[in-house]
């Protein structure tokens, strides 16, 4: 079975961009940083239709601001959005390497009845992750530095496929990287540029739509 890669975009309240995202069938990536901006309770498109979405942990936003991970804000977001989220990304330490795993695993029991993704990043290997991956975790979130990500995306997609896990690649904002993810068999990706630079939308959309129209050759995925 070879499904299309699902695209998530950072939350936007800009009507034009939100309409565009809806028209293309894309979904939202919300995070604790959007707590005050997403109303009513669940993310909606301007026409009132509730959107599909996944919930980020907010670690990236805190990292950019030079702040520590905000566990309280994450828990508030889980309480508000967790039950209908496609996925909830377990907390991680940006640029934390293998020590990030300890933080992620500390939340697994608390979130055991939500669909969670385990972030992987620089320094982690499939063997390392396989050794400690809890059964309640539904997949992996490929984060880390751009260089590391580009080198390891096919490996992680293969790792996930063989274990019947979901593989999501974070922060994919160029057409070439989208192609790499799609051709590697990523189940989903997210990017912010589609919302921040709406002019890029047609380009990014072309990357996905033409995939289905044979521009990209996607090798058949093996049975999982």
């Amino acid at each position, binding site marked *: 079975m070879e*499904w299309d890669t699902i695209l998530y975009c950072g939350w936007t309240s800009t009507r034009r961009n939100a309409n565009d995202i809806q028209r293309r069938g894309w979904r939202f990536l919300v995070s604790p940083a959007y707590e005050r901006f997403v109303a009513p309770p669940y993310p909606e498109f301007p026409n009132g239709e509730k959107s599909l979405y996944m919930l980020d942990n907010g670690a990236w936003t805190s990292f950019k601001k030079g702040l520590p991970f905000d566990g309280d804000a994450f828990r508030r977001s889980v309480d508000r959005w967790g039950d209908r*989220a496609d996925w909830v990304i377990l907390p991680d330490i940006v640029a934390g390497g293998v020590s990030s795993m300890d933080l992620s695993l500390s939340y697994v029991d608390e979130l055991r*009845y939500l669909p969670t993704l385990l972030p992987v990043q620089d320094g982690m290997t499939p063997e390392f992750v396989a050794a400690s991956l809890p059964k309640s975790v539904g997949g992996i979130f490929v984060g880390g530095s751009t260089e590391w990500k580009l080198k390891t995306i096919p490996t992680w997609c293969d790792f996930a496929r063989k274990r019947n896990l979901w593989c999501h690649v974070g922060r994919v904002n160029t057409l070439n990287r989208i192609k790499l993810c799609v051709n590697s068999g990523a189940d989903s990706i997210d990017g912010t540029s589609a919302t921040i630079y709406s002019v890029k939308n047609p380009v990014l959309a072309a990357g996905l739509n033409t995939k289905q129209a044979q521009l990209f050759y996607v090798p058949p995925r093996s049975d999982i």
Partner: protein
Amino acid sequence: MSSRSVLILLSGGYDSLFMLNMSKADGHATACLFIDYGQQAAQQEQQAAERACADHGVALYSASITLAESSITPMNGPSGAGPRVVPGRNLALIGLAVNHAASEGYKEVWIGATADDVHDYADCRSGFIMGADAAARAYGVQVCAPLIRRRRSDLVEMVKRSGWVMSAAFSCYSPDENGKPCGDCNSCAQPA
């Protein structure tokens, strides 16, 4: 041939028929369970399920349960758009399917919840399925919702690519007196 054995909750509708095709394509040992829970379209759905299972050469188990009449009544009212929520329906259906799976030697129960269901139906959300799965594992059975991240439009696209025949499907909450789809309900409004 895979080593997995699957019992599919088959309503005869598009999503469950898609799962039947998917399971067969993946080479799993497959059987189906149709449950009459008093839904208005039970007769049409059962006929669709029987056709689909005959086409695929898989066993079809049938069962019936009685839900609270007041929980079914809205489904028998005038047709129209909007969710038709039957409280606890999937809990009852999954429980019965786990009973059949554990007794007949199937290791997985598949239910056709999709991403389109998540906002309207609490029993189609991941947390609900994960909870049901945790309970079912006591009997050596896993509960899976293999379509839960996918929208109906994704399924339609996949059907086009794979060439699967979906003509046996019957998806309507409120068929007319001749047994034809009403064309108005949420189920009829989905692409097919």
